[in-house]
Every structure is written in C-alpha cells, then in structure tokens.
C-alpha cells in the first residue's frame, strides 16, 4: 500500500544525496544519537518522579514543566534526523520488521506522552492515585524502550 510512496521517496534528491554521500548518514545518525541522550534524560526525569523515585521531593508538575521543553526539542531533532535516515534507505526500511515495530511504538509513545501522561503529570498533587501515576510511568518507559530497541535492531537486521 505504501510501497509506491516509499519508492518515490527513495528517488528524491535528498534521499540520493544522503545515500551517496560517504559521511552524511553517519553525521545525521550522530545527531540522532545526541538527541537520544537528551530525550532519554527528559523522559526518565519525569517517569522516575511518577514512580516515586528520582526527584521525589519536588512536585510532579514542577518536574514535568522543566522537562517538557527538552522533551519536545529533542523529539523534534529526533524526528527530523530520523526522517533523514529513513529517506536514505526508504525501501530497506519498508521491508524491515523492526522499522515498523519502531514506527508503531513511536506513534503510541508520542500520543501517550502528549495526552494521558501530560494530563496526569500536570493534574496537581493528590488528583491521581499513586498507583495510576506508576502505571503511566511504566507504560511510558515500555513504549519508549520499544522505540529505542526496535530502532537499534533496524541496523542489525539488514
């Protein structure tokens, strides 16, 4: 269903440019990794707090608000660089199971982060039962771990 689009993408100038350059892929990948560290820190800061670990002397809302811009900023960098990596080998990705696992986890992780998790984190003290805070944190960690692990696996399954 998506194959024609993927094939069109792989013939675009940007795809050819990244694919033919000996270093472009490596550079984009490095930026992707640097943003991974930042997004990891931003996600973990809040999820640890939701679990009652990490910065547990701080209000959840405080941690959520401080982590948010770093989360969004690094997510944008990840999406842009990730798209660059994808177009350079779009057809290979299309036939890669880990790639689709990653995309599915990513979609779920982003929806969860901007809806349930954000609402729960900003709900204010005592509004959400502690058990649900922990459930939200675990779901978030599992989803993001899925994104990272499946992403790493794209490279191995080639």
């Amino acid at each position, binding site marked *: 269903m998506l194959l024609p689009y993927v094939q069109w993408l792989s013939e675009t100038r940007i795809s050819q440019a990244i694919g033919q350059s000996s270093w472009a892929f490596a550079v984009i990948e490095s930026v992707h990794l640097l943003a991974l560290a930042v997004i990891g820190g931003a996600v973990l800061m809040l999820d640890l707090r939701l679990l009652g670990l990490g*910065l*547990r002397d*701080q209000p959840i809302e405080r941690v959520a608000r401080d982590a948010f811009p770093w989360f969004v900023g690094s997510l944008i960098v990840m999406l842009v660089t990730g798209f660059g990596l994808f177009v350079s080998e779009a057809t290979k990705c299309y036939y890669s199971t880990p790639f689709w696992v990653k995309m599915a986890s990513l979609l779920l992780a982003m929806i969860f982060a901007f809806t349930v998790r954000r609402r729960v984190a900003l709900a204010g003290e005592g509004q959400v039962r502690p058990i649900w805070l922990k459930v939200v944190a675990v779901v978030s960690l599992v989803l993001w771990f899925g994104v990272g692990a499946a992403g790493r696996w794209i490279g191995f399954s080639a």
Partner: protein
Amino acid sequence: MSLLPFCQWLADTPGSIALHESVFMYPVVESTHVLTLCVFLGLAVMWDLRLLGVTLTTVPMTQLKQRIGPWMTGGFVVMIITGTMLFCAIPVRSYQSIWFRMKAVALVLAGLNAFVFHRTIDRRIEQWDTDPVPPPAARLAGARSLVLWAVIVVAGRMIAYNWFDCDKQPQSRIVNALAGCVVAAEGVR
C-alpha cells in the same frame, strides 16, 4: 609503548572470539550500551543543564545529586561493563581506530572535568546550592561536560565506520600516526 601486542593477545582469547562471533550476544551488548546512554548520559545532560542554570532551577543541586546521582552511577557502571565487552570483542581494530582513541581521550578529559568540579566549586556547594543560576565555575564545568560527552557519543558512533582503518591504505600519514597503524615500506600489517 604500544598496547598492540596486548590487544592481539586479547583478540585470541576464547572470550573475545566468542563475543566477536556470537550471533546474538554482540548485538545485545551493543544495544544495551546504546540504550543505557539514555539513563547515564540523559541524566548527566539534565545535571549539566542544571549546572548551567537552564532547567530544574528550583531544585537544589544537593537534591539532584542525592536523588539522581545513584541512577547516573548505575547507568555508568552498565556503560563501562558493556563498553569494555565491546572493546574485548574487537580489540585490535578498536585500538587502531582514531575514533576509539578520540573517545578514550575525551573520556579521560570528562573524568578530569568531573574530578576538578568535585574538588573545587562542589566543595562550596552550600554557598550556591539553591541558586537558580550557579556560579561561573560550575556553569563552565557543566558546559565542558556537555561538549566532551557529545564528542564521546559521536566518536563512539564513528568507530563503526572504516574510513580510517589501518587495513584501508593508503591513508594520510597523520591518520596512520594517530591510529597507530603499523605501515611497512611495502604494505601494512
């Protein structure tokens, strides 16, 4: 002094060969190394950003240290163990990689930066613990740390590429010298 003979010896040990040739173990160790980056470096970045006074400005530095420090230490231990395993799996090529060497130097510098931080400005932490923007020396330590860790990550990723490998000759004399390639008059070893 060259560590090349040691690396050559290491490469022939059963453990190194097993890791190198394993179908699953090597990717699992490598994935663990990369994903633990989120734990150790992710939190270290937050720590450095706090030192720079750009996030978590209402959190006292001592609290961050007490609550986040153990997670960073845990992540760091995993990074060191998996990183050592990755080196042991491919010792000779890693030793002769300019990227690996760059990473090693940056790691030493990052360690030195942390050591100096703990020995100097961190000693007077009670004076600036709750400052939204810490004093210049602390900010500088945070900035240096961010730059060094970025170098470590990028150089680490580049180890996988063979542009400057010793068995890919001719290389420029500088590359051969920096990578420690043993280049004989007529070829390479």
